[in-house]
């Protein structure tokens, strides 16, 4: 079973990965975006770690709703409301249970990903974070490791796609050949699940 501590470790591990990967995320965001994805997420997840320490929410759902709210208010780019909505909706779907199972998390995350698709209007294949998250959620029923592999594969598979959402979509064919930064950061978020689980 996964308790609030697991979810705090998940957020902390994500923050560490984002710190480590910030330069790469910003580099991915340079040719097809506005070169701020790494620094935006860095600011956001630093704030998430700080608020979780300060307020010490006691349930998995409360950890994720607070983290999501913090991302919406601190990021300043589109990734704030998108990741914020992902975590908030996932948290709300987990309810107020003190512990949740991996299947509960898989189902809740599916609700969160659906909410992100609705918010941004993106579908699989549009070269967005959805391309990493949808396969990850599908594989989460098997294991965290399978979800991690699916997310990483999904992120890499955005490279040949033509962007249909966000700023990169203005570039048309020129967006082809670059990995989507949002899909890359989504893969970090999912990979952090295995770290939180100590795998």
């Amino acid at each position: 079973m996964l308790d609030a501590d697991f979810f705090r470790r998940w957020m902390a591990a994500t923050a560490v990965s984002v710190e480590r990967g910030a330069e790469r995320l910003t580099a991915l965001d340079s040719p097809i975006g506005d070169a701020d994805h790494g620094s935006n997420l860095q600011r956001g997840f630093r704030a998430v770690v700080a608020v979780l320490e300060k307020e010490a929410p006691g349930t998995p759902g409360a950890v994720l709703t607070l983290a999501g709210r913090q991302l919406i208010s601190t990021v300043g780019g589109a990734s704030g409301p998108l990741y914020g909505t992902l975590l908030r909706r996932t948290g709300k779907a987990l309810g107020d249970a003190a512990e949740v199972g991996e299947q509960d998390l898989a189902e809740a995350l599916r609700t969160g990903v659906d909410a992100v698709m609705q918010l941004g209007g993106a579908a699989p294949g549009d070269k967005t974070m959805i391309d990493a998250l949808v396969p990850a959620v599908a594989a989460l029923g098997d294991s965290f490791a399978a979800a991690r592999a699916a997310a990483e594969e999904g992120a890499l598979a955005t490279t040949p796609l033509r962007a249909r959402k966000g700023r990169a979509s203005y570039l048309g064919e020129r967006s082809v050949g670059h990995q989507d930064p949002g899909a890359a950061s989504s893969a970090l978020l999912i990979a952090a699940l295995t770290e939180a689980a100590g795998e």
Partner: protein
Amino acid sequence: MSDVAEGVPGAGAEDGAKLVGIVLVSHSAAVAASVAELATGLAGGGATVPVAPAGGDGDGGLGTSSELVSAAAAAVDRGAGVAVLTDLGSAVLTVKALLAEGDELPPDTRLVDAPFVEGAVAAVVTASAGADLAAVEAAAADAYTYRKV
């Protein structure tokens, strides 16, 4: 806010009417402030519509600050609803996310689907005539149909 001006006997219909508030959200603080100034200026000398810009990331850079958006919406809320116009990308997504939160924006706050500059002018002019939120929203959205050639 108290409704001190409402229901005064013998007052004209619009004297006590609460005006719809307008919030203008742009990635750029300068753009939001300038469009607010433009729309207010073009609205002329009618009733003074509460208009608030919410531009930039709050630290002087380009982006969207949910705190600025929430503060602007609270500042223009007179109880008749708030129409929010945005430019693009994170401005749109931030307002949608705040609306989904439920308690971050005044009740009767709407994201209006409209072109930013033309929609803002239409919204402010319409609101200054004492129109309700639905009419302000319709006028702003109608700005999409204004062709220039």
